[in-house]
């Protein structure tokens, strides 16, 4: 597992950039989500456990900056990280294609979870508009961005993987050289 001394500053930096810079960006309703991309791609590369740790740390930082219920964003990130780290769809094609599909589907699920938490907290939610005008475009945008994020994080994965271990894309488990 990547050291917490690296994980905490790195994920906090992702969350800060998301809050300060990317929250201002909206392309036809779609919002790029740096933390989502990082969490999903890292879970894809390293499995659910590491993805969930990233999701928990980054989600907490964003929840501190949010006017919504504390833990709402964290919950959504943790769930998508857990699902991204499962062994689903490995036979569908290249890692880039897998990340695209996962980014697309899980981003939509992420937004549905956010809306569910807001509904539970008593915030008025316009479901049809939110899903059509924000969730769907965001899912497409983050799905398209996911292969690029995966490419960058794969570099980090290779640099930080313990010696004597290699990573097999088709069978994403550690094995000895």
């Amino acid at each position, binding site marked *: 597992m990547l050291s917490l001394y690296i994980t905490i500053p790195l994920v906090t930096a992702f969350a800060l950039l998301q809050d300060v810079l990317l929250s201002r960006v909206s392309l036809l309703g779609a919002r790029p989500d740096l933390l989502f991309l990082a969490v999903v791609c890292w879970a894809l590369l390293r499995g659910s*456990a590491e993805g969930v740790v990233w*999701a928990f740390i980054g989600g907490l930082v964003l929840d501190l900056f949010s006017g919504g219920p*504390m*833990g*709402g964003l964290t919950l959504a990130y943790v769930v998508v990280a857990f699902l991204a780290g499962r062994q689903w769809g490995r036979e569908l094609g290249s890692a880039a294609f897998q990340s695209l599909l996962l980014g697309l589907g899980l981003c939509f699920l992420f937004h549905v979870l956010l809306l569910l938490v807001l509904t539970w907290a008593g915030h008025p*939610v316009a479901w049809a*508009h939110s899903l059509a005008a924000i969730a769907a475009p965001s899912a497409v945008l983050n799905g398209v961005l996911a292969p690029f994020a995966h490419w960058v994080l794969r570099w980090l994965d290779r640099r930080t993987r313990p010696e004597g271990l290699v990573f097999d894309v088709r069978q994403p488990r550690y094995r000895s050289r």
Partner: protein
Amino acid sequence: MRSAFWRSWLPLLLFLLTLTLLVLHETQALRSVENGLQLVFAPLQRFTSTLVDRAGGLFHTARQVRELEAQVQQLQDQVDALSVENIRLQTFEAEVTQLRDLLGFAATNPTWTFMGADVVGREACAQAPCGEVIGQEPNPYLRYFTINAGAEEGVAVGMPVVAGGAVLVGRVAEVGPHTAKVQLLSDTASDVAAMLQQSQATGVVAGQPDGSLRMLYIPQDEPLEVGDVVLTSGLGGGLPRGLVIGQVAEVYRQDVALFQEAAIRPAVDYRRVGLLLVITSFQPLVEEGPETGVQP
């Protein structure tokens, strides 16, 4: 072996921890912890914000473009200032008319006693906390700002937040030691008692899911035209009277409906405001927080 055990149970553990956080937040049990964490993260947030703003400036390399941008900004500021000033003058004109009527009313009732009352005390920036926007809302379904003024500076839940002089931007929804979260008028949970400047007809300005504003519950028989200025009415005691909200952009009138509705064009672009003013001298009458349903 132990590592494998943790790997398999860690997701469930963190999931349960997150659920606990959600529940504890709703019961306000986490307030002191959140305040402590905000003390740590607010400077980081501000530093990143400054860094990003400065880095963004590097992209504008052509000097002429910069000069033109500055000129456009200057002119835009002048237009904004003049628009607000114009609206304020119109308000004063309406107020003078009302006072003349009142004076006439007093003159015709010489045995009664009257006391003048000014509802809003607007303070200068040097006296009231001036909040600089340091963070945007990371949740795409909420519309909040984080500002760098909090309880230590005298900010409290429910206080109105204005920009550009007298333009209402929103209300303080949560307060930390040195930061506060401002719920914008465009948030879907935001409802503000409002009135039309010309006809004095009242209604409610509510935030819409797409981030726009709409004035609801305007009586059918009230005259309503595009360009009418919308102000806070002060009804309910949650906000001072006379703060500018925007102008009517479109009128929705149906013969079969009980009320008219109007799309409101905000007087300022909420996405571009940088410096805000919190009116601390106004004490909301609603003790349980702003009318929006946001818990203090």
